[in-house]
């Protein structure tokens, strides 16, 4: 018992020293120093309200799905944080801390010319969906713009793959885009044309877009406060 405690104590004791930046229902997010670099640590803590075996299986599955999605994106050339280390015993993911960046949400609020941004987002999402990666929580707060690179050399980084999974279904991709659309239009008023441009860029960049856009239109007709007459 004592031995296993000391073996597994390394990550939790490390986390005690690290700075917690957010606590959600699913996980806690910390910022710390790892191997000389600034990192973000995502800890999926044990949920005591669940049956322990179920909790372990579920948490492990969620962690591996998240890491798998990030790695898959990175292999395809999409910008996502580098995964430095994953501890499967404590379900902690050590990710690159993207410093000197601003969320797309903040950027839209302050900047003027957003056409290239819309193009870039559409392009990036097309690439991601072509890799069959579904982000699951596409919002403007989950996209970062690295400062320094502007306009043509814009660097867009996708973060928070906590709800992501692998799927080839156009339905899932359509829903992914729908989530973005809802988040986009509710956070940034009067940006319908901007989103249109985003979708155009997506359609142009993706090889499988027609099916996805068709599904997106179908999904739009569903949802809350929509009449299913037809």
């Amino acid at each position: 018992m004592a031995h296993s405690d000391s073996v597994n104590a390394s990550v939790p004791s490390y986390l005690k020293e690290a700075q917690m930046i957010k606590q959600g229902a699913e996980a806690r997010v910390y910022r710390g120093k790892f191997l000389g670099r600034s990192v973000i640590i995502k800890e999926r803590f044990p949920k005591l309200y669940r049956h322990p075996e179920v909790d372990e299986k579920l948490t492990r599955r969620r962690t591996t799905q998240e890491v798998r999605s990030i790695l898959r994106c990175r292999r395809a050339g999409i910008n996502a944080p580098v995964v430095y280390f994953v501890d499967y015993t404590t379900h902690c993911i050590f990710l690159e801390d993207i410093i000197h960046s601003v969320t797309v949400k903040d950027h839209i609020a302050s900047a003027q010319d957003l056409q290239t941004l819309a193009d870039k987002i559409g392009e990036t999402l097309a690439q991601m969906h072509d890799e069959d990666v579904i982000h699951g929580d596409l919002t403007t707060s989950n996209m970062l713009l690295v400062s320094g690179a502007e306009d043509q050399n814009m660097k867009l980084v996708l973060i928070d793959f906590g709800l992501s999974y692998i799927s080839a279904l156009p339905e899932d991709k359509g829903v992914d885009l729908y989530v973005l659309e809802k988040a986009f239009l509710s956070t940034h008023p009067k940006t319908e044309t901007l989103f249109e441009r985003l979708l155009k860029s997506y359609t142009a960049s993706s090889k499988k877009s027609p099916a996805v856009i068709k599904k997106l239109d179908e999904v739009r007709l569903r949802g809350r406060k929509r009449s299913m007459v037809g």
Partner: protein
Amino acid sequence: MHLTQDLELFPEYTVIQLLFKDVKNATELRKMAVNGEIKGALINPSMVVDAFQILVAANKAVHLHKNGKMKTRSLYSEIIFNLSPTNNVSDIFHYRNTAEIFICLQCAVLTEFNVWQISEAFKRFGISDSDSAVLIVLVHNKDETLSVDDIISKVDGQQVAVDRVSDFTDVAKIKKACLFSHSTDEEQFRVSRFFAFV
């Protein structure tokens, strides 16, 4: 000249890296690593993009070692194994769950598949008798004594600063080994890309 880094998660361990060029006794060094005279991992620097990559591999190796979940027999062979992107066998072993290929799961059973992977890792990342550059990685437990000079004296070569490891990087060889599906320009092919596999 050598690079030292404490492992934040395992405070009693320090990782020390030493880089040598114009090495004339690679065969001898390999023998010394095998019989334990040199307690370290001997790595081929042409497959290394940045010293950080070694730290990440070492960190994972120490973690698995402490949890008793290493795939290889020693900490040093584990470091070499961790450098290898294991997904390169996905073409051959299609039946295998892609999850296991992307992520090194805690599988204690050493299957035939794993043995193949480990020997591949050594072939690619370990040094061969004809190599003239060697990167030595030591994982030092603070409770034990370690003489870095002792190790340096065993190498018949010239020591250089570890941050010059990129002088030895063979990008084409690495690309081939890792089978990147998308060929991006050299600028994009940086350390961060390589870490897709660690």
